[in-house]
C-alpha cells in the first residue's frame, strides 16, 4: 500500500491519496499539469515537501536507493547509458530467464538486446525500458506514458503486462493521455486541471 500525504508540487494544492496493493491509479491532465512531477516526486527524484509511505514506512526512513528499488519510476522517454540495451540490464545469470519472459510478454525477441540503442525504434526502446523497470519486481510502478510510442498491438501487450502486475499485488500509477487505456485499467483517477490548480479525484467501479 502506497500512501501519499500532503505532497506539494508546484502550484497544485497538497495531494493526499493512497493506492492499495493490486490497485491502479490513473493521473490525467493536459501537458504541463504536473503528471510527470507527481510520479517523479513519488520516486523521490525531486526534492518535494510531503510524506510518502510504503507499507507504513516513510521514504526518509530508508536510503533513497532502497526506496527507488521499491517505487519504480519509468520515464516517458527512457534514458540509456550503454550502447546496447543489454548493458543497461542486470547481468546476473539468475535473472536472464525472467528478462526473456518479460521481453516475450511485450512482443520482443532477446536479440533486440544486442542491437545498438540508436537503431531501435522508439516503441522498442520504450518496451525494453518497461522490461528493465520490472526485472527486480518493485512494489509500486510509476509509469509515465507507458504506451505513448506504441502501436495498437504493442499497447495491448503492455496493457496485459500491467494487468498482470496488478494481479501480482503491485500498485500501479499511470500518467497517460490514452483515456481508453485508463478506462480499462484504472480503479481510480486523479484529474489535474489545465491550470495546475484544482485536482479532482473520482472513484470508479473496478474494471
Amino acid at each position, binding site marked *: 500500500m502506497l500512501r501519499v500525504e500532503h505532497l506539494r508540487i508546484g502550484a497544485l494544492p497538497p495531494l493526499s491519496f493512497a493506492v492499495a496493493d493490486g490497485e491502479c491509479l490513473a493521473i490525467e491532465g493536459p501537458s504541463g499539469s504536473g503528471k510527470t512531477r507527481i510520479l517523479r516526486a513519488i520516486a523521490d*527524484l525531486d*526534492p518535494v515537501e510531503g510524506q510518502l509511505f510504503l507499507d507504513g514506512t516513510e521514504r526518509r526512513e530508508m536510503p*533513497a*536507493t532502497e526506496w*527507488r528499488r521499491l517505487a*519504480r519510476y519509468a*520515464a516517458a522517454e527512457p*534514458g540509456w*547509458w550503454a550502447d546496447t540495451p543489454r548493458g543497461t540490464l542486470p547481468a546476473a545469470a539468475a535473472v536472464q530467464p525472467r528478462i526473456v519472459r518479460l521481453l516475450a510478454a511485450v512482443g520482443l525477441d532477446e536479440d533486440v538486446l544486442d542491437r545498438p540503442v540508436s537503431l531501435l525504434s522508439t516503441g522498442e526502446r520504450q518496451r525494453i525500458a518497461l522490461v528493465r523497470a520490472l526485472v527486480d519486481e518493485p512494489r509500486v510502478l510509476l509509469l509515465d506514458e507507458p504506451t505513448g510510442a506504441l502501436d495498437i498491438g504493442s499497447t495491448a501487450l503492455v496493457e496485459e503486462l500491467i494487468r498482470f502486475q496488478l494481479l501480482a499485488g503491485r500498485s500501479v500509477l499511470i500518467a497517460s493521455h490514452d483515456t481508453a487505456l485508463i478506462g480499462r485499467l484504472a480503479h481510480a483517477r486523479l484529474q489535474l486541471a489545465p491550470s495546475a490548480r484544482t485536482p479532482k479525484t473520482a472513484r470508479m467501479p473496478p474494471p
Partner: protein
Amino acid sequence: MSYVELSFWDLALAALLLIANGVVSVWFRLGLERTLAVSALRMVIQLSIVALALKFIFTLDAPIWTILFGLFMTAAAAFEVVSRQERRIMGPLALALGAGAPFFAGLLATMFAAIAVIGPEPWYAPRYVLPIFGMMLGNALSGTTLVLDAMTSGVVRERPAIEARLALGAGRYEALDAILRRALTTGLMPILTAMAATGVVSLPGMMTGQILAGIDPVSAAKYQVMIMFLIAGSTGIAVVGAGLGSVLLLTDERHRLRLDRLAKA
C-alpha cells in the same frame, strides 16, 4: 656561460613585432587593435608588479609574505575558475571546491618539492616555493576547470540516462560513474599530452628561461623533469578532488540529480 641583461630599449625593440599583429587586424578589419593594445599593456603592467613584488619578498625572506603571496595567487585562480565555466554550480561550496582543489593540490606538491626533493635552505625560501607553487596552481587550475566543465555539461546532456539509473536504484556515484570517468580523462589529458610532447614539439618555457639565463641545458632539463612530475601529481590530485566534489555538489544525500543548482545558461 654568460647572461645578457635586457635593457628597456631591447624590450621596446621587441614590442615592434606587435605592429605586425596590428597590421593584420587593420588589413582584415578584425577590429582587434584595441584589444591588442590593452592585452599587451596588461601583460607589461602585471609582470612588472609581480616582478617587483617577488623582488621585495625575496629580500624579506619571511614566511608570512610568502604565504600571503601564495594566497593572493589562489584568489586570482578562484576568480579564473568561476569566470571560465559555461554553466557553473551555484553557491559558496562550489567556489570553495573550484579554489580549494587547485590550492591543496598545489600546496601538497610544492611542500613535497621544497622539503623532500629540492631541499633549499630554509625550506620555505620564496625563490623556490613561489614559482613552483605558481606552476602547480596554474596547471591544477586548468585541470579543475576542465573537470568541472565536463561534469556540468555532462550531467545536463546525460540527464535522462543518469535519472534512469537513479530510478532503477543506483546510488549517485554509480549513476554518474561514466560522466565522472570521462571528466577525469579530460582533466588529465593536457598534462599527459604535454609530457609526451615535451622536448619534441616544444621546449618548455621554464627550461628555455633557465637556458637563456645561462644554466647548463642538462641541469635545466633535470629541473624541467621534476616540474613535470610535480605538475602531473598536483593536477591528478586536483582533478580527482574536483571530480568527486562535483558529484557531491550535483547530487544530494537522497541521491537525486540537482540540476537546479546550476546557474542558468
